[in-house]
């Protein structure tokens, strides 16, 4: 007979847990897989019923995402030169010629600038504020912290109209700076609170040791505290980025052209020449990639970040 252990789960329990996790993962991953698959379908396959699980992959969606096209008749097509590139060829197959690029690339770049920019500032100011709250005797500290938290107590969109008017007055409408400021402001409460938690966990003695060892307060902060807070900074950065990256409502309201991010742009793809679901799906798929890479790069920290405080180092 095998030994019985209180803490070690039995084989059956392990199986059960495994199946549960796989089922849950499938439920949550399903929409994601659906989007990725749709991006590689032809427009006909994308709307076929019953849905096609096995289909002939096509890059038409991606071509349509990045290009504007003009429909040509068969007689006209014969007068054209043979297609030069693979994407020319894909467009020609569906009876169109490429007439220029779309603005997806530019919108995507806006998302990167605004998403990462606001994340940087949220972390930068968040770390400084959290450090000060954690280490210094700040007058009315508790009230200030509550005030910072209270900005999160309503949905940000509740203040959309005042913000819209403010932005118009200040000329921040449809600018990168305006969006970075806005997302930084919304994220700061989260980053201050999260980071304060992490910095509180770092024993004061480390800095004091550095102060005694001949370093200034600021040197002690960035040479001793920051490396210790790396886990917290990384996980806070992920939360901030995900918010700024996915934000839709303010982006619709405050941007329309040069600073428009990808989320309000993607739905507009659908309107260009019929319901082009593969192009929409392609846009969404590409949009997922940066956050995915960022999260994978920082995932070790993320896991420790979520469980912070639970296990003492």
């Amino acid at each position: 007979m095998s030994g019985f252990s209180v803490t070690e789960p039995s084989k059956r329990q392990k199986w059960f847990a495994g199946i549960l996790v796989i089922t849950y993962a499938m439920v949550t991953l399903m929409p994601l897989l659906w989007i990725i698959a749709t991006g590689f379908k032809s427009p006909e396959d994308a709307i076929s019923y019953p849905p096609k699980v096995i289909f002939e992959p096509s890059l038409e969606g991606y071509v349509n995402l990045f290009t504007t096209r003009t429909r040509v008749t068969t007689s006209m097509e014969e007068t054209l030169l043979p297609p030069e590139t693979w994407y020319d060829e894909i467009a020609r197959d569906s009876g169109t010629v490429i007439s220029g690029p779309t603005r997806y690339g530019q919108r995507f770049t806006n998302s990167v600038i605004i998403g990462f920019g606001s994340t940087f500032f949220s972390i930068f100011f968040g770390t400084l504020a959290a450090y000060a709250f954690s280490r210094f005797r700040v007058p009315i500290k508790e009230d200030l912290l509550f005030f910072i938290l209270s900005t999160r107590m309503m949905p940000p969109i509740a203040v959309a109209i005042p913000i819209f008017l403010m932005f118009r007055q200040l000329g921040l409408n449809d600018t990168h700076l305006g969006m970075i400021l806005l997302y930084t402001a919304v994220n700061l409460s989260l980053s201050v609170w999260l980071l304060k938690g992490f910095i509180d966990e770092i024993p004061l003695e480390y800095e004091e040791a550095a102060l005694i060892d001949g370093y200034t307060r600021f040197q002690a902060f960035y040479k001793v505290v920051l490396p210790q807070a790396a886990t917290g900074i990384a996980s806070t950065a992920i939360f901030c980025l995900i918010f700024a990256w996915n934000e839709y409502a303010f982006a619709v309201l405050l941007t329309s052209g040069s600073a428009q991010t990808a989320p309000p742009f993607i739905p507009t793809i659908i309107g260009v020449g019929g319901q082009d679901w593969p192009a929409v799906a392609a846009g969404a798929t590409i949009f997922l990639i940066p956050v995915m890479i960022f999260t994978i790069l920082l995932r070790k920290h993320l896991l420790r970040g979520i469980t912070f405080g639970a296990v003492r180092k």
Partner: protein
Amino acid sequence: MAQIIIKNLRKDFGNFTAVKSSSFTIEDGEFFMLLGPSGCGKTTTLRMIAGLELPTSGEIYIDGEEVSQKRASQRDIAFVFQMFALYPHMNVRQNISYPLKSQGMPKAKVKERVAKVAKILGIEDILNKPVGGLSGGDRQRIALGRAIVREPKAFMMDEPLGALDAEFREHMSAELRALHDRMGATTVYVTHDQLEAMQMGDKIVVMNHGSVEQFGVPQDIYDWPATMFVATFIGSPSMNFLRFNGTVGIGDTSVELDGHVFEVPSQLEGCKGEIAFGVRPEHVTLDPEEGYSGKVIAIEYLGTSQIVTLETPNGTLKARIASTQEVVVGEMAGISFNPKTVTLFNNETGVALLSVNNKGVLSDG
């Protein structure tokens, strides 16, 4: 190496006064103990000397220079923390060399210094290991290494042995004392362990409720406590107090306990009211001939000696006597005291009354 002078040092945290007007002098090369129960202000005092807290008022002189409002980094002292505070993202070598890097010392010289320190502490073989997996003793050695590598004017140690287990603490305290004797640097050491303070210190300051109760060499503090608090805090078991109501006049050489006359050192200070007759357990003898007696209520056997607890008309009394002497629980035993060692205290204020014997110790403190 330096002499440290503390003058009227005070520290308030809001409405709470952590340290009230402390004054004492630490001579160059001394191993100086700050002793007291938790919350007595000893750590705050140490941190003020180190520059980790700024005093509310008062002066601190290190080597004749007034430093009380200067930053820690400008005072050239080293600090050893109770929890070691080794930088967890650095390995042993980096930890030890970190203070030298702040001075911009050339790499070759840093290496040489670190090697020298590692040899003194016997940690040469772990220099390239991360600090995470090391034992408490090794961490303690590294923390010491980080302190001595800079060759500072003085060392501050905040219960450096507090985090070690009992067996290892013994070993480390001997090592620390040997290290101090070898380097001859002024060391200020905070502890709540009176035994540790007696063992290691050249001089002791006993603190309570933010004030200095007594300051002197261990022997003097043990033999001639300035207050009942010091008498209780130092020594195990602590000093006995037999309380009685009466009057002590200047020049008196005896007091009366429950109708029995006991000799005391010639008094230089009088007192009226409740008085405590203080005597250390080893200065109590059990003698059947004596009239003054108590009932034996407990015996603790300690090998060569035994602690006998007696119930006397003036309160409980502990006597440390040879374990060869036969004592029976429940029986009465006659009690006498070594008259030269007795200290009388004003039981209300807790302060010792001056006598010819403790005058030398108490009049300058």
